């Protein structure tokens, strides 16, 4: 086991024309599970491949333990990698696939047998050791790939979207299996995914990248509750946080008025106390972020404060069973956050019918498509961002 340090790690392609990873600095603790997450093309896989030694480093440094490994061959870095397509050797049995790194290391046959059996037991692969990868299901193949990684007892696990080839149900199952396995082995793990749910559920910490630049590295809870900027705010959480241009009124003793289009919310004094930096935005425009789950049907919260209510019409209600996703128009200018994975160009034009906003209501809500809508916003949980930089206003 070892800690991993990335120091201003940079990767440029095509004679410096494209920067895939830009100045990435991270400190991954011994035994930590760090998830690198971001939209496609954000450089997360490239960063992982640089740590593995499969990609040349343009600039910066990688340390594994106390060793500077920039020029160390992949086989000498003491890392094991699980690939997106598993990269199992199709002509070898499951046993040989798992035993391969040990055979290469010329371990005695009995020791290989013992270690493979142990890995197979942990991953419940005992009955499949004689099969070829082609005769296994997706989940079993995934386990074989894990087996090949754990059998070596490496210092660091590197996982490049290992669950993306599985169907949704199996993904949830394997997610918890990998998580449990990592806890049990206590091996430092760097896990790449584009799925924010995987990132939030698996990682001790999550590092979010966009265009090769690190946006925030934090615990999943802090990432969700204290996003560093508008990109993080919209990337983490599903449905994404609603972001609108708004303006704060005069900061009085009991808080302030937040104008949101032709409606208004009341921001209490507590919010200003928690975010002292917000006082500077009195009588100024801000970007306000409202998480869908911080809104509720007024019918279910009859004692919700009058000043925290918004009115609209339910345009679309998606019942998920456990809760309901309600789409409604809000007469406030929506903030576009450029994310290559979202089809922002087909988003509704601001100003025409207002911007769309999404709320997550309890399943008990009786709201139907086309109903007039009154909802309560938990204003204590509002997020505020600077309109010019997009950075969060915390302090």
């Amino acid at each position, binding site marked *: 086991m070892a800690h991993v340090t990335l120091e201003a790690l940079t990767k440029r392609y095509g004679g410096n024309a494209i920067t895939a990873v830009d100045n990435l600095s991270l400190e991954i603790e011994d035994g930590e599970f760090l998830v690198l997450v971001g939209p496609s093309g954000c450089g997360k896989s490239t960063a992982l491949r640089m740590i*593995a030694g*499969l990609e040349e480093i343009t600039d910066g440094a990688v340390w594994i333990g106390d060793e500077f490994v920039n020029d160390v061959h992949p*086989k000498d870095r003491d890392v094991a*990698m699980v*690939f997106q397509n598993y990269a199992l*050797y199709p002509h070898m049995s499951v046993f040989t696939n798992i035993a391969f790194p040990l055979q290469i290391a010329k371990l005695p046959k009995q020791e290989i047998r013992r270690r493979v059996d142990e890995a197979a037991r942990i991953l419940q692969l005992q009955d499949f050791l004689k099969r070829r990868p082609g005769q296994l299901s997706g989940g079993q193949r995934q386990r074989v790939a894990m087996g090949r990684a754990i059998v*070596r007892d490496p210092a660091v696990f590197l996982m490049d979207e290992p669950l993306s080839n599985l169907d949704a149900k199996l993904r949830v199952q394997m997610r918890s299996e990998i998580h449990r396995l990592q806890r049990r082995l206590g091996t430092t793990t760097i896990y790449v995914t584009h799925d924010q749910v995987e990132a939030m559920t698996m990682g001790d910490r999550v590092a979010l990248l966009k265009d090769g630049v690190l946006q925030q590295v934090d615990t999943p809870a802090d990432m969700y509750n204290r996003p560093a900027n508008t990109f993080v705010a919209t990337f983490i959480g599903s449905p994404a946080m609603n972001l609108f241009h708004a303006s704060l009124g005069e900061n009085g003793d009991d808080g302030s008025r937040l104008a949101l289009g032709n409606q208004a919310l009341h921001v209490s004094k507590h919010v200003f106390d928690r975010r002292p930096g917000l006082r500077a935005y009195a009588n100024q425009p801000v970007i306000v972020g409202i998480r869908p789950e911080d809104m509720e049907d007024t019918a279910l919260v009859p004692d919700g404060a009058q000043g925290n209510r918004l009115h609209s019409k339910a345009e679309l209600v998606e019942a998920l069973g456990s809760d309901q996703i309600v789409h409604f128009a809000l007469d406030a200018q929506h903030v576009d956050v450029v994310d290559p994975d979202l089809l922002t160009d087909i988003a509704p034009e601001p100003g025409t019918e207002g911007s769309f906003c999404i709320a997550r209501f309890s399943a008990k809500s009786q709201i139907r498509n086309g109903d007039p809508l009154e909802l309560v916003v938990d204003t204590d949980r509002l997020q505020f961002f600077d309109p010019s930089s997009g950075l969060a206003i915390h302090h």
Partner: protein
Amino acid sequence: MATARTYDPELLRQSRMRRANAQRLRKFGLHLILITLLVVMLYPVIWMVFSSLRPEAEIFGGLGLIPTTWTLENYRTGWNLFGDKTFGLFFVNSFVICALAIAGNLISCSMAAYAFARLNFRFKWLWFSLMLGSIMLPIHAQLIPQYIFFLNIGWVNTILPLVVPKFLATDAFFVFLMVQFMRSLPPELEQAAMIDGASYWQRYWRIILPLTVPALVTTAVFTFIFTYNDFFSQLIYLTDIDKMTVPVALRLFLDPSGGTSSFGGLFAMVLVSIGPVLGFFLASQRLLVRGIATQGFK
């Protein structure tokens, strides 16, 4: 105005019959054409089979296909025509050259292909283009300089000029075939092996080579067929009767100067010599098609 339609099982049956008959007729016509073409193409072979089974004097004597007298005499004389040496010697010579050529091509072409497909080295694309360019160089242009070279180093009248170059990856076609095949293998396999600690050699030997089997079989089959059928270079480099191969020896049945030619023996030995190629092809046909199909040639 729409007419009312009623369901009439008899009408339906008749129309189905008409369609089935038309289809049957079309199939019959197609088969007739194909069988005719087959007979035209197979006739010389069939004629040769029957000629090898009739007495020498009868071969060009009668017009009929079926011999009046059946005999295996031609096989006996053909096999033993060359004094104390039987035709079996030529088979052995051919097989030795074929086996060495196959081994040479498999080893050297796969190694060269691995280098071109997966390794990075200076001027890789220049070397690759030069190698591909060599495919376009006609054999006749290379023949004389090559012959002079082999003569100077004393290799003429040995099997070395036919075999040694195969160990130096000179068959650019096979190198190209394998390069294309290896490029189609997912690079992650090798990267995984690299992280698992495998050296270049281990990656080539344990990962790439076993996965390239269809291309290797294609190479083996074609090398066998090309080498076994290669009359020209074997004629040029092998002069001693002890060293001659099947195609060169078959020529000895005919006397171009107008002396006695043994057509019966020739036909008999031609038929015997077709056997190995046919057997080799049939045995590896399935893998051969897979090898070619993966190349996108099929």
